[in-house]
Protein backbone atom coordinates (compact mmCIF):
# COMPACT_ATOMS: atom_id res chain seq x y z
CA UNK A 1 0.00 0.00 0.00
CA UNK A 2 1.40 3.39 -0.86
CA UNK A 3 1.55 6.12 1.79
CA UNK A 4 -1.16 8.17 0.11
CA UNK A 5 -3.56 5.27 0.18
CA UNK A 6 -2.73 4.60 3.80
CA UNK A 7 -3.32 8.23 4.69
CA UNK A 8 -6.70 8.14 3.00
CA UNK A 9 -7.64 4.93 4.73
CA UNK A 10 -6.61 6.25 8.17
CA UNK A 11 -8.36 9.56 7.57
CA UNK A 12 -11.52 7.70 6.67
CA UNK A 13 -11.21 5.64 9.82
CA UNK A 14 -10.85 8.78 11.96
CA UNK A 15 -13.83 10.45 10.34
CA UNK A 16 -16.02 7.36 10.68
CA UNK A 17 -15.01 6.93 14.30
CA UNK A 18 -15.78 10.59 14.97
CA UNK A 19 -19.11 10.30 13.24
CA UNK A 20 -20.06 7.24 15.25
CA UNK A 21 -18.96 8.57 18.63
CA UNK A 22 -19.64 12.28 18.14
CA UNK A 23 -18.78 12.99 21.77
CA UNK A 24 -15.37 14.50 21.00
CA UNK A 25 -16.61 17.10 18.55
CA UNK A 26 -19.79 17.87 20.47
CA UNK A 27 -17.83 18.17 23.71
CA UNK A 28 -15.46 20.69 22.18
CA UNK A 29 -18.33 22.62 20.63
CA UNK A 30 -20.09 22.80 23.96
CA UNK A 31 -16.83 24.01 25.51
CA UNK A 32 -16.50 26.74 22.87
CA UNK A 33 -20.12 27.84 23.21
CA UNK A 34 -19.99 28.04 27.00
CA UNK A 35 -16.69 29.99 26.90
CA UNK A 36 -18.12 32.41 24.37
CA UNK A 37 -21.23 32.80 26.53
CA UNK A 38 -19.12 33.50 29.64
CA UNK A 39 -17.05 36.06 27.76
CA UNK A 40 -20.24 37.72 26.59
CA UNK A 41 -21.74 37.69 30.07
CA UNK A 42 -18.58 39.12 31.61
CA UNK A 43 -17.80 41.87 29.12
CA UNK A 44 -20.99 42.74 27.20
CA UNK A 45 -19.12 45.27 25.05
CA UNK A 46 -15.91 43.92 23.55
CA UNK A 47 -13.20 46.20 22.15
CA UNK A 48 -11.55 44.91 18.93
CA UNK A 49 -8.14 44.25 20.49
CA UNK A 50 -9.73 42.35 23.38
CA UNK A 51 -11.92 40.51 20.88
CA UNK A 52 -8.75 39.50 19.09
CA UNK A 53 -6.96 38.22 22.18
CA UNK A 54 -10.00 36.41 23.59
CA UNK A 55 -10.78 34.79 20.25
CA UNK A 56 -7.33 33.24 19.91
CA UNK A 57 -7.21 32.19 23.54
CA UNK A 58 -10.54 30.37 23.16
CA UNK A 59 -9.25 28.68 20.01
CA UNK A 60 -5.96 27.79 21.73
CA UNK A 61 -7.60 26.03 24.67
CA UNK A 62 -10.23 24.38 22.50
CA UNK A 63 -7.48 23.01 20.23
CA UNK A 64 -5.37 21.68 23.10
CA UNK A 65 -8.43 19.92 24.50
CA UNK A 66 -9.49 18.60 21.13
CA UNK A 67 -6.08 17.21 20.19
CA UNK A 68 -4.82 16.05 23.60
CA UNK A 69 -6.55 12.71 23.30
CA UNK A 70 -5.74 11.97 19.68
CA UNK A 71 -3.18 9.33 20.63
CA UNK A 72 -4.63 8.17 23.92
CA UNK A 73 -8.14 7.36 22.73
CA UNK A 74 -7.01 4.45 20.54
CA UNK A 75 -6.42 1.60 22.95
CA UNK A 76 -2.98 -0.01 23.14
CA UNK A 77 -4.15 -3.06 21.27
CA UNK A 78 -5.48 -1.05 18.38
CA UNK A 79 -2.22 0.91 18.25
CA UNK A 80 -0.28 -2.35 18.08
CA UNK A 81 -2.55 -3.44 15.24
CA UNK A 82 -1.85 -0.26 13.29
CA UNK A 83 1.85 -0.65 14.04
CA UNK A 84 1.98 -3.96 12.19
CA UNK A 85 -0.24 -2.70 9.40
CA UNK A 86 0.74 0.79 8.25
CA UNK A 87 3.64 3.18 7.79
CA UNK A 88 4.06 5.51 10.81
CA UNK A 89 4.44 8.45 8.42
CA UNK A 90 0.91 7.79 7.18
CA UNK A 91 -0.37 7.75 10.76
CA UNK A 92 1.00 11.20 11.63
CA UNK A 93 -0.03 12.74 8.31
CA UNK A 94 -3.55 11.37 8.65
CA UNK A 95 -3.83 12.58 12.25
CA UNK A 96 -2.54 16.04 11.30
CA UNK A 97 -4.97 16.37 8.41
CA UNK A 98 -7.85 15.13 10.52
CA UNK A 99 -6.99 17.49 13.37
CA UNK A 100 -6.54 20.39 10.97
CA UNK A 101 -10.02 19.76 9.58
CA UNK A 102 -11.41 19.51 13.11
CA UNK A 103 -9.69 22.73 14.18
CA UNK A 104 -10.78 24.50 11.01
CA UNK A 105 -14.36 23.59 11.83
CA UNK A 106 -13.98 24.56 15.49
CA UNK A 107 -12.37 27.93 14.70
CA UNK A 108 -15.01 28.74 12.10
CA UNK A 109 -17.81 27.90 14.52
CA UNK A 110 -16.08 29.87 17.30
CA UNK A 111 -15.81 32.82 14.95
CA UNK A 112 -19.52 32.53 14.07
CA UNK A 113 -20.61 32.21 17.71
CA UNK A 114 -18.26 34.94 18.89
CA UNK A 115 -19.31 37.45 16.26
CA UNK A 116 -22.94 36.65 17.04
CA UNK A 117 -22.57 37.69 20.69
CA UNK A 118 -19.67 40.15 20.57
CA UNK A 119 -19.91 41.64 17.10
CA UNK A 120 -17.66 41.11 14.12
CA UNK A 121 -14.74 43.59 14.02
CA UNK A 122 -13.04 41.94 11.01
CA UNK A 123 -12.49 44.47 8.21
CA UNK A 124 -10.39 42.47 5.76
CA UNK A 125 -12.08 39.08 5.56
CA UNK A 126 -9.50 37.45 3.29
CA UNK A 127 -6.64 38.15 5.69
CA UNK A 128 -8.63 36.82 8.61
CA UNK A 129 -9.52 33.69 6.65
CA UNK A 130 -5.82 33.13 5.89
CA UNK A 131 -5.06 33.57 9.59
CA UNK A 132 -7.72 31.01 10.51
CA UNK A 133 -6.48 28.54 7.91
CA UNK A 134 -2.77 28.82 8.74
CA UNK A 135 -3.61 28.91 12.44
CA UNK A 136 -5.58 25.66 12.42
CA UNK A 137 -2.83 24.06 10.37
CA UNK A 138 -0.05 25.21 12.71
CA UNK A 139 -1.97 24.30 15.86
CA UNK A 140 -2.81 20.93 14.38
CA UNK A 141 0.82 20.10 13.47
CA UNK A 142 2.34 21.21 16.77
CA UNK A 143 -0.36 19.81 19.05
CA UNK A 144 -0.70 16.49 17.22
CA UNK A 145 3.02 15.87 17.50
CA UNK A 146 3.19 17.01 21.14
CA UNK A 147 0.21 14.82 22.02
CA UNK A 148 2.00 11.81 20.56
CA UNK A 149 4.95 12.63 22.86
CA UNK A 150 2.69 13.25 25.85
CA UNK A 151 0.90 9.94 25.26
CA UNK A 152 4.16 8.20 26.17
CA UNK A 153 4.63 10.06 29.47
CA UNK A 154 2.90 9.67 32.80
CA UNK A 155 -0.05 12.05 33.40
CA UNK A 156 -0.13 13.01 29.79
CA UNK A 157 -2.70 15.82 30.01
CA UNK A 158 -0.39 17.97 32.19
CA UNK A 159 2.59 17.16 29.99
CA UNK A 160 0.54 18.12 26.95
CA UNK A 161 -0.09 21.61 28.36
CA UNK A 162 3.49 22.11 29.61
CA UNK A 163 5.06 21.08 26.32
CA UNK A 164 2.64 22.58 23.82
CA UNK A 165 2.19 26.16 25.09
CA UNK A 166 5.81 27.30 24.71
CA UNK A 167 6.07 25.56 21.33
CA UNK A 168 2.96 27.29 19.95
CA UNK A 169 3.78 30.85 21.10
CA UNK A 170 5.56 31.96 17.89
CA UNK A 171 2.61 30.77 15.80
CA UNK A 172 0.11 32.37 18.19
CA UNK A 173 1.86 35.76 18.30
CA UNK A 174 2.10 35.93 14.51
CA UNK A 175 -1.57 34.94 14.24
CA UNK A 176 -2.63 37.64 16.70
CA UNK A 177 -0.66 40.21 14.73
CA UNK A 178 -2.14 39.01 11.45
CA UNK A 179 -5.72 39.11 12.68
CA UNK A 180 -5.13 42.48 14.39
CA UNK A 181 -4.08 43.75 11.00
CA UNK A 182 -7.21 42.30 9.42
CA UNK A 183 -9.26 44.25 11.99
CA UNK A 184 -7.28 47.43 11.22
CA UNK A 185 -6.23 47.71 14.87
CA UNK A 186 -2.72 48.09 13.53
CA UNK A 187 -1.40 48.92 10.12
CA UNK A 188 1.41 46.95 8.59
CA UNK A 189 2.19 47.38 4.94
CA UNK A 190 4.41 44.29 4.87
CA UNK A 191 1.80 41.90 6.26
CA UNK A 192 2.84 39.33 3.67
CA UNK A 193 6.03 38.84 5.68
CA UNK A 194 3.91 37.57 8.58
CA UNK A 195 2.03 35.19 6.32
CA UNK A 196 5.32 33.86 4.93
CA UNK A 197 6.59 33.49 8.51
CA UNK A 198 3.55 31.42 9.43
CA UNK A 199 3.92 29.26 6.33
CA UNK A 200 7.61 28.80 7.13
CA UNK A 201 6.92 27.81 10.75
CA UNK A 202 4.20 25.38 9.65
CA UNK A 203 6.58 23.95 7.06
CA UNK A 204 9.44 23.49 9.52
CA UNK A 205 7.17 21.90 12.15
CA UNK A 206 5.51 19.48 9.72
CA UNK A 207 8.86 18.41 8.27
CA UNK A 208 10.35 17.79 11.72
CA UNK A 209 7.18 16.02 12.88
CA UNK A 210 7.15 13.65 9.91
CA UNK A 211 10.85 12.85 10.29
CA UNK A 212 10.67 12.30 14.06
CA UNK A 213 7.36 10.49 14.39
CA UNK A 214 8.67 7.00 13.50
CA UNK A 215 10.92 7.20 16.58
CA UNK A 216 7.92 7.74 18.85
CA UNK A 217 6.12 4.85 17.23
CA UNK A 218 8.80 2.30 17.99
CA UNK A 219 7.43 0.52 21.05
CA UNK B 1 34.87 19.73 49.13
CA UNK B 2 31.66 20.90 50.65
CA UNK B 3 33.37 23.17 53.13
CA UNK B 4 35.29 24.96 50.41
CA UNK B 5 32.15 25.73 48.42
CA UNK B 6 30.45 27.06 51.55
CA UNK B 7 33.48 29.23 52.22
CA UNK B 8 33.33 30.57 48.68
CA UNK B 9 29.66 31.27 49.08
CA UNK B 10 30.26 33.35 52.20
CA UNK B 11 33.11 35.16 50.51
CA UNK B 12 30.64 36.00 47.79
CA UNK B 13 28.13 37.27 50.34
CA UNK B 14 30.76 39.51 51.92
CA UNK B 15 31.68 40.87 48.51
CA UNK B 16 28.11 41.44 47.36
CA UNK B 17 26.62 42.71 50.58
CA UNK B 18 28.26 46.15 50.61
CA UNK B 19 27.10 46.60 47.02
CA UNK B 20 23.49 45.82 47.80
CA UNK B 21 23.58 47.91 50.96
CA UNK B 22 24.62 50.97 48.99
CA UNK B 23 22.21 50.32 46.17
CA UNK B 24 19.33 51.71 48.24
CA UNK B 25 20.50 54.97 46.80
CA UNK B 26 19.05 54.98 43.27
CA UNK B 27 21.92 57.07 41.95
CA UNK B 28 24.51 54.54 43.04
CA UNK B 29 24.14 52.35 39.97
CA UNK B 30 24.16 55.43 37.77
CA UNK B 31 27.40 56.82 39.19
CA UNK B 32 30.71 56.69 37.30
CA UNK B 33 29.06 56.06 33.95
CA UNK B 34 26.87 53.21 35.28
CA UNK B 35 29.94 51.01 35.85
CA UNK B 36 28.25 49.28 38.79
CA UNK B 37 25.66 47.84 36.41
CA UNK B 38 28.54 46.00 34.74
CA UNK B 39 29.82 44.92 38.16
CA UNK B 40 26.35 43.63 39.07
CA UNK B 41 26.09 41.70 35.79
CA UNK B 42 29.48 40.05 36.30
CA UNK B 43 28.53 39.25 39.90
CA UNK B 44 25.27 37.68 38.72
CA UNK B 45 27.09 35.48 36.21
CA UNK B 46 29.67 34.49 38.80
CA UNK B 47 27.04 33.74 41.44
CA UNK B 48 24.96 31.75 38.96
CA UNK B 49 27.89 29.57 37.98
CA UNK B 50 28.75 29.15 41.67
CA UNK B 51 25.22 28.03 42.56
CA UNK B 52 25.35 25.57 39.67
CA UNK B 53 28.64 24.22 41.02
CA UNK B 54 27.07 23.75 44.45
CA UNK B 55 24.20 21.85 42.81
CA UNK B 56 26.68 19.59 40.98
CA UNK B 57 28.65 19.11 44.17
CA UNK B 58 25.57 17.84 45.98
CA UNK B 59 24.82 15.49 43.09
CA UNK B 60 28.31 14.01 43.31
CA UNK B 61 28.05 13.67 47.10
CA UNK B 62 24.82 11.73 46.67
CA UNK B 63 26.49 9.39 44.19
CA UNK B 64 29.47 8.88 46.52
CA UNK B 65 27.12 7.93 49.35
CA UNK B 66 25.32 5.53 47.02
CA UNK B 67 28.59 3.87 46.07
CA UNK B 68 29.59 3.55 49.74
CA UNK B 69 26.26 1.91 50.52
CA UNK B 70 26.70 -0.55 47.68
CA UNK B 71 30.06 -1.60 49.07
Amino acid at each position, binding site marked *: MSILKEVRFLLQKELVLEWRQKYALSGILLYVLSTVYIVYAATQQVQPHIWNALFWIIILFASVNAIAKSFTQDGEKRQLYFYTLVNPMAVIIAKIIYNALLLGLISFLTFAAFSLVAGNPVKIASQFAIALFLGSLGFSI*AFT*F*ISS*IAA*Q*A*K*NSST*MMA*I*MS*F*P*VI*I*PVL*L*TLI*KLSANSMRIMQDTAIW*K*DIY*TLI*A*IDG*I*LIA*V*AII*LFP*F*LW*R*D | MKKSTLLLFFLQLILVFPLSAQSDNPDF*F*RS*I*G*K*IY*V*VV*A*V*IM*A*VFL*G*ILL*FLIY*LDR*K*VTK*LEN*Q*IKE*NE
Partner: protein
Amino acid sequence: MRKFWWKYLGAAILVYVILAGMLIPLKPGVLEISPSTAQAAQTMTFTVEGYNTNYDKASSSIRAWLRSDDDHGLTASEITVVDYNTLNVTFNIPKWLPYESKVKYFSLILDNEIDGASVLPSAVSLTQEVPNLARAKALWPQGNIKDLHTNEVISFPYRNILYETIRNLYFHVSLWLAMMILFIVSVFYSIKYLRTFNKDFDDKALALTSSGLMFGILGLITGSIWAKHTWGTYWTWQEIKLNMTAVAMLIYAAYFILRSSMEDSERKSRISSVYNIFAFAALIPLLYVIPRLTSSLHPGNGGNPTFGSEDLDNTMRMVFYPAVIGFTLLGLWISTLIYRIEKIKDKLYDRV
Protein backbone atom coordinates in the same frame (compact mmCIF):
# COMPACT_ATOMS: atom_id res chain seq x y z
CA MET C 1 46.77 17.59 30.90
CA ARG C 2 47.10 17.41 27.13
CA LYS C 3 43.57 16.06 26.88
CA PHE C 4 42.04 18.94 28.78
CA TRP C 5 43.86 21.82 27.11
CA TRP C 6 40.61 23.37 25.89
CA LYS C 7 39.29 23.76 29.44
CA TYR C 8 42.34 25.79 30.44
CA LEU C 9 42.10 27.68 27.16
CA GLY C 10 38.48 28.57 28.03
CA ALA C 11 39.46 29.77 31.50
CA ALA C 12 42.37 31.79 30.09
CA ILE C 13 40.12 33.40 27.48
CA LEU C 14 37.59 34.34 30.15
CA VAL C 15 40.34 35.91 32.27
CA TYR C 16 41.42 37.90 29.20
CA VAL C 17 37.81 38.93 28.55
CA ILE C 18 37.27 40.15 32.11
CA LEU C 19 40.58 42.03 32.18
CA ALA C 20 40.25 43.59 28.74
CA GLY C 21 36.52 44.16 29.10
CA MET C 22 36.94 46.03 32.38
CA LEU C 23 40.27 47.81 31.89
CA ILE C 24 40.02 49.27 28.39
CA PRO C 25 38.56 52.79 28.84
CA LEU C 26 35.62 54.31 27.05
CA LYS C 27 36.25 56.88 24.34
CA PRO C 28 35.92 60.44 25.62
CA GLY C 29 32.41 61.73 25.15
CA VAL C 30 29.98 64.49 26.10
CA LEU C 31 27.72 63.66 29.03
CA GLU C 32 25.53 66.71 29.31
CA ILE C 33 25.01 70.31 28.24
CA SER C 34 23.09 72.88 30.22
CA PRO C 35 20.98 74.83 29.54
CA SER C 36 19.53 72.75 26.72
CA THR C 37 17.37 75.47 25.18
CA ALA C 38 18.21 78.89 23.75
CA GLN C 39 16.75 81.67 21.62
CA ALA C 40 18.04 82.89 18.30
CA ALA C 41 19.87 86.26 18.31
CA GLN C 42 21.31 85.61 21.74
CA THR C 43 24.78 85.14 23.14
CA MET C 44 24.58 82.07 25.28
CA THR C 45 27.12 80.34 27.50
CA PHE C 46 26.59 76.64 27.93
CA THR C 47 28.21 74.42 30.55
CA VAL C 48 29.40 71.21 28.93
CA GLU C 49 30.20 68.13 30.99
CA GLY C 50 32.53 65.61 29.42
CA TYR C 51 33.30 62.00 30.22
CA ASN C 52 36.86 60.59 30.30
CA THR C 53 38.08 63.84 28.81
CA ASN C 54 41.33 65.81 29.17
CA TYR C 55 40.11 69.35 28.63
CA ASP C 56 42.73 70.80 30.98
CA LYS C 57 45.64 69.23 29.09
CA ALA C 58 44.32 70.06 25.64
CA SER C 59 42.89 73.47 26.45
CA SER C 60 44.58 75.25 23.54
CA SER C 61 43.16 72.95 20.86
CA ILE C 62 39.53 72.69 21.96
CA ARG C 63 36.98 73.64 19.33
CA ALA C 64 33.19 73.41 19.48
CA TRP C 65 30.30 73.63 17.02
CA LEU C 66 26.52 73.47 16.98
CA ARG C 67 25.56 71.39 14.01
CA SER C 68 22.30 71.04 12.08
CA ASP C 69 21.24 67.78 10.42
CA ASP C 70 22.41 68.90 6.98
CA ASP C 71 25.90 69.91 8.13
CA HIS C 72 25.43 73.62 8.78
CA GLY C 73 27.83 74.47 11.58
CA LEU C 74 28.14 77.36 14.04
CA THR C 75 31.58 77.80 15.59
CA ALA C 76 31.83 78.67 19.28
CA SER C 77 33.00 82.19 19.95
CA GLU C 78 34.65 81.49 23.27
CA ILE C 79 35.66 78.37 25.20
CA THR C 80 36.95 78.38 28.77
CA VAL C 81 38.19 75.28 30.54
CA VAL C 82 36.90 74.83 34.10
CA ASP C 83 38.52 71.49 34.81
CA TYR C 84 39.36 68.22 33.05
CA ASN C 85 35.72 67.43 32.28
CA THR C 86 33.91 70.76 32.41
CA LEU C 87 33.85 73.50 29.77
CA ASN C 88 32.07 76.82 29.38
CA VAL C 89 31.24 77.27 25.72
CA THR C 90 29.79 80.51 24.38
CA PHE C 91 27.90 80.76 21.09
CA ASN C 92 26.74 83.91 19.33
CA ILE C 93 23.54 82.45 17.98
CA PRO C 94 22.44 84.29 14.80
CA LYS C 95 18.97 85.67 14.30
CA TRP C 96 18.10 83.02 11.73
CA LEU C 97 18.41 79.22 11.85
CA PRO C 98 19.02 77.07 8.77
CA TYR C 99 15.48 75.66 8.96
CA GLU C 100 11.96 76.66 7.98
CA SER C 101 10.53 75.53 11.31
CA LYS C 102 10.67 77.65 14.45
CA VAL C 103 12.14 75.12 16.90
CA LYS C 104 14.90 72.71 16.03
CA TYR C 105 17.42 70.49 17.78
CA PHE C 106 21.13 70.94 17.14
CA SER C 107 23.91 68.58 18.10
CA LEU C 108 27.08 69.64 19.83
CA ILE C 109 30.45 68.66 18.41
CA LEU C 110 33.62 69.01 20.43
CA ASP C 111 37.15 68.40 19.25
CA ASN C 112 40.58 68.54 20.81
CA GLU C 113 43.96 66.99 20.03
CA ILE C 114 44.06 64.52 22.93
CA ASP C 115 40.50 63.19 23.09
CA GLY C 116 39.57 63.47 19.44
CA ALA C 117 36.10 64.49 18.29
CA SER C 118 32.94 63.73 20.26
CA VAL C 119 29.27 64.36 19.57
CA LEU C 120 26.21 64.92 21.75
CA PRO C 121 23.21 64.34 19.46
CA SER C 122 20.16 66.61 19.82
CA ALA C 123 21.98 68.63 22.47
CA VAL C 124 20.33 72.04 22.28
CA SER C 125 16.95 73.16 20.97
CA LEU C 126 17.00 76.62 19.41
CA THR C 127 13.96 78.80 18.80
CA GLN C 128 13.74 81.50 16.13
CA GLU C 129 11.11 84.17 15.57
CA VAL C 130 10.88 84.51 11.80
CA PRO C 131 12.52 81.85 9.62
CA ASN C 132 14.68 83.12 6.78
CA LEU C 133 16.55 80.31 5.11
CA ALA C 134 18.53 82.40 2.62
CA ARG C 135 20.08 84.68 5.20
CA ALA C 136 20.60 81.85 7.67
CA LYS C 137 22.74 79.92 5.19
CA ALA C 138 25.32 82.68 5.14
CA LEU C 139 25.49 82.75 8.92
CA TRP C 140 25.65 78.94 9.28
CA PRO C 141 28.37 77.92 6.80
CA GLN C 142 28.17 74.41 5.46
CA GLY C 143 31.15 72.10 5.87
CA ASN C 144 33.12 74.24 8.32
CA ILE C 145 33.44 71.33 10.73
CA LYS C 146 36.70 69.84 9.52
CA ASP C 147 40.22 68.82 10.55
CA LEU C 148 38.77 66.75 13.38
CA HIS C 149 41.24 64.78 15.49
CA THR C 150 40.89 61.06 15.98
CA ASN C 151 41.55 59.31 19.26
CA GLU C 152 44.34 56.75 18.79
CA VAL C 153 44.07 55.17 22.26
CA ILE C 154 42.52 51.69 22.37
CA SER C 155 39.01 52.26 23.69
CA PHE C 156 35.38 51.20 23.52
CA PRO C 157 32.80 53.44 21.85
CA TYR C 158 31.02 56.02 23.98
CA ARG C 159 27.21 55.89 23.72
CA ASN C 160 24.79 58.07 25.63
CA ILE C 161 22.47 56.21 28.05
CA LEU C 162 24.65 53.09 27.75
CA TYR C 163 27.92 54.67 28.98
CA GLU C 164 30.07 52.01 30.70
CA THR C 165 27.36 49.36 30.40
CA ILE C 166 28.42 48.88 26.80
CA ARG C 167 30.84 46.41 28.42
CA ASN C 168 27.88 44.19 29.24
CA LEU C 169 28.04 43.09 25.63
CA TYR C 170 30.82 40.72 26.72
CA PHE C 171 29.11 39.41 29.83
CA HIS C 172 25.49 39.33 28.70
CA VAL C 173 25.18 39.03 24.92
CA SER C 174 27.96 36.44 24.74
CA LEU C 175 25.98 34.30 27.22
CA TRP C 176 23.09 34.15 24.74
CA LEU C 177 25.36 33.07 21.91
CA ALA C 178 27.08 30.47 24.11
CA MET C 179 23.63 29.18 25.10
CA MET C 180 22.58 28.83 21.46
CA ILE C 181 25.81 27.00 20.62
CA LEU C 182 25.27 24.60 23.54
CA PHE C 183 21.67 23.94 22.44
CA ILE C 184 22.76 23.33 18.85
CA VAL C 185 25.42 20.82 19.96
CA SER C 186 22.81 19.20 22.22
CA VAL C 187 20.40 18.80 19.30
CA PHE C 188 23.26 17.35 17.28
CA TYR C 189 23.78 14.69 19.98
CA SER C 190 20.05 14.00 20.17
CA ILE C 191 20.03 13.33 16.42
CA LYS C 192 23.06 11.10 16.91
CA TYR C 193 21.23 9.22 19.65
CA LEU C 194 18.23 8.57 17.42
CA ARG C 195 20.56 7.19 14.73
CA THR C 196 22.57 4.89 16.99
CA PHE C 197 20.53 4.39 20.18
CA ASN C 198 23.73 4.67 22.17
CA LYS C 199 22.93 6.00 25.68
CA ASP C 200 26.16 8.02 25.76
CA PHE C 201 24.82 10.46 23.18
CA ASP C 202 21.63 11.06 25.14
CA ASP C 203 23.68 11.69 28.30
CA LYS C 204 25.73 14.23 26.35
CA ALA C 205 22.59 15.92 25.03
CA LEU C 206 21.17 16.09 28.57
CA ALA C 207 24.41 17.57 29.95
CA LEU C 208 24.59 20.23 27.23
CA THR C 209 20.93 21.14 27.70
CA SER C 210 21.45 21.65 31.44
CA SER C 211 24.41 23.96 31.00
CA GLY C 212 22.62 25.78 28.17
CA LEU C 213 19.60 26.27 30.41
CA MET C 214 21.87 27.68 33.12
CA PHE C 215 23.35 30.17 30.64
CA GLY C 216 19.84 31.07 29.48
CA ILE C 217 18.67 31.82 33.01
CA LEU C 218 21.83 33.85 33.69
CA GLY C 219 21.22 35.71 30.43
CA LEU C 220 17.69 36.60 31.52
CA ILE C 221 18.89 37.81 34.94
CA THR C 222 21.80 39.86 33.58
CA GLY C 223 19.58 41.16 30.78
CA SER C 224 17.00 42.46 33.21
CA ILE C 225 19.67 44.09 35.41
CA TRP C 226 21.03 45.84 32.32
CA ALA C 227 17.55 46.78 31.12
CA LYS C 228 16.65 48.26 34.51
CA HIS C 229 19.50 50.75 34.37
CA THR C 230 19.33 51.69 30.71
CA TRP C 231 15.68 51.36 29.68
CA GLY C 232 14.22 51.82 33.16
CA THR C 233 12.38 48.52 33.64
CA TYR C 234 13.43 45.03 34.64
CA TRP C 235 11.13 43.50 32.10
CA THR C 236 9.60 44.96 29.01
CA TRP C 237 6.95 43.54 26.73
CA GLN C 238 8.39 45.63 23.93
CA GLU C 239 11.54 43.57 24.05
CA ILE C 240 10.44 40.50 22.15
CA LYS C 241 13.83 38.79 22.22
CA LEU C 242 13.80 38.82 26.02
CA ASN C 243 10.32 37.29 26.09
CA MET C 244 11.11 34.80 23.39
CA THR C 245 14.10 33.57 25.34
CA ALA C 246 11.91 33.23 28.41
CA VAL C 247 9.70 31.00 26.27
CA ALA C 248 12.77 29.03 25.21
CA MET C 249 13.53 28.51 28.90
CA LEU C 250 9.99 27.15 29.32
CA ILE C 251 10.59 24.74 26.45
CA TYR C 252 13.74 23.38 28.03
CA ALA C 253 12.19 23.26 31.49
CA ALA C 254 9.47 21.10 29.91
CA TYR C 255 12.28 18.93 28.53
CA PHE C 256 13.47 18.18 32.07
CA ILE C 257 9.94 17.58 33.38
CA LEU C 258 9.34 15.22 30.47
CA ARG C 259 12.47 13.27 31.39
CA SER C 260 11.42 12.95 34.99
CA SER C 261 7.94 11.75 34.01
CA MET C 262 9.24 8.52 32.48
CA GLU C 263 10.70 5.53 34.29
CA ASP C 264 11.97 3.34 31.50
CA SER C 265 15.49 4.44 30.58
CA GLU C 266 15.40 3.60 26.87
CA ARG C 267 12.04 5.24 26.35
CA LYS C 268 13.13 8.30 28.36
CA SER C 269 16.18 8.81 26.15
CA ARG C 270 14.26 8.26 22.93
CA ILE C 271 11.24 10.47 23.71
CA SER C 272 13.29 13.28 25.21
CA SER C 273 15.66 13.27 22.23
CA VAL C 274 12.65 13.62 19.93
CA TYR C 275 11.30 16.49 22.04
CA ASN C 276 14.70 18.18 22.13
CA ILE C 277 14.86 18.24 18.33
CA PHE C 278 11.25 19.36 17.95
CA ALA C 279 11.60 22.09 20.59
CA PHE C 280 14.74 23.38 18.91
CA ALA C 281 12.92 23.54 15.59
CA ALA C 282 10.29 25.65 17.38
CA LEU C 283 13.04 27.77 18.94
CA ILE C 284 14.50 28.94 15.62
CA PRO C 285 11.44 31.02 14.68
CA LEU C 286 11.22 32.15 18.33
CA LEU C 287 14.62 33.77 18.36
CA TYR C 288 15.14 35.02 14.84
CA VAL C 289 11.91 35.30 12.89
CA ILE C 290 9.57 36.95 15.39
CA PRO C 291 11.88 39.83 16.48
CA ARG C 292 12.00 40.96 12.84
CA LEU C 293 8.25 41.47 12.89
CA THR C 294 7.99 43.78 15.87
CA SER C 295 9.81 46.86 16.97
CA SER C 296 12.38 45.97 19.54
CA LEU C 297 14.82 47.74 21.79
CA HIS C 298 17.68 45.47 20.88
CA PRO C 299 19.94 46.83 18.18
CA GLY C 300 19.75 45.43 14.69
CA ASN C 301 16.05 44.76 14.44
CA GLY C 302 13.95 45.28 11.37
CA GLY C 303 15.76 43.04 8.94
CA ASN C 304 19.11 42.42 10.56
CA PRO C 305 19.22 40.39 13.78
CA THR C 306 22.94 40.90 14.42
CA PHE C 307 24.95 43.84 15.65
CA GLY C 308 25.59 46.36 12.96
CA SER C 309 29.04 47.78 12.34
CA GLU C 310 27.96 50.92 14.20
CA ASP C 311 27.26 48.98 17.38
CA LEU C 312 30.25 46.69 17.33
CA ASP C 313 33.53 48.33 16.43
CA ASN C 314 36.80 46.54 15.92
CA THR C 315 38.03 46.98 19.49
CA MET C 316 34.80 45.48 20.81
CA ARG C 317 35.12 42.56 18.40
CA MET C 318 38.55 41.81 19.86
CA VAL C 319 36.86 41.15 23.20
CA PHE C 320 33.37 40.03 22.14
CA TYR C 321 34.32 37.06 19.97
CA PRO C 322 36.77 35.68 22.58
CA ALA C 323 34.01 36.14 25.17
CA VAL C 324 31.65 33.96 23.12
CA ILE C 325 34.35 31.31 22.69
CA GLY C 326 35.32 31.49 26.37
CA PHE C 327 31.76 31.11 27.65
CA THR C 328 31.10 28.29 25.19
CA LEU C 329 34.19 26.42 26.39
CA LEU C 330 33.14 27.01 30.00
CA GLY C 331 29.70 25.62 29.16
CA LEU C 332 31.24 22.58 27.50
CA TRP C 333 33.44 22.06 30.54
CA ILE C 334 30.42 22.14 32.87
CA SER C 335 28.63 19.80 30.46
CA THR C 336 31.43 17.24 30.65
CA LEU C 337 31.08 17.28 34.45
CA ILE C 338 27.34 16.55 34.20
CA TYR C 339 28.02 13.94 31.54
CA ARG C 340 30.48 12.16 33.81
CA ILE C 341 27.98 12.24 36.68
CA GLU C 342 25.35 10.73 34.36
CA LYS C 343 27.77 8.00 33.29
CA ILE C 344 28.47 7.08 36.91
CA LYS C 345 24.72 6.97 37.53
CA ASP C 346 24.27 4.69 34.51
CA LYS C 347 26.92 2.32 35.89
CA LEU C 348 25.48 2.46 39.39
CA TYR C 349 21.90 1.74 38.39
CA ASP C 350 22.82 -0.66 35.56
CA ARG C 351 21.24 1.43 32.87
CA VAL C 352 22.35 0.85 29.32
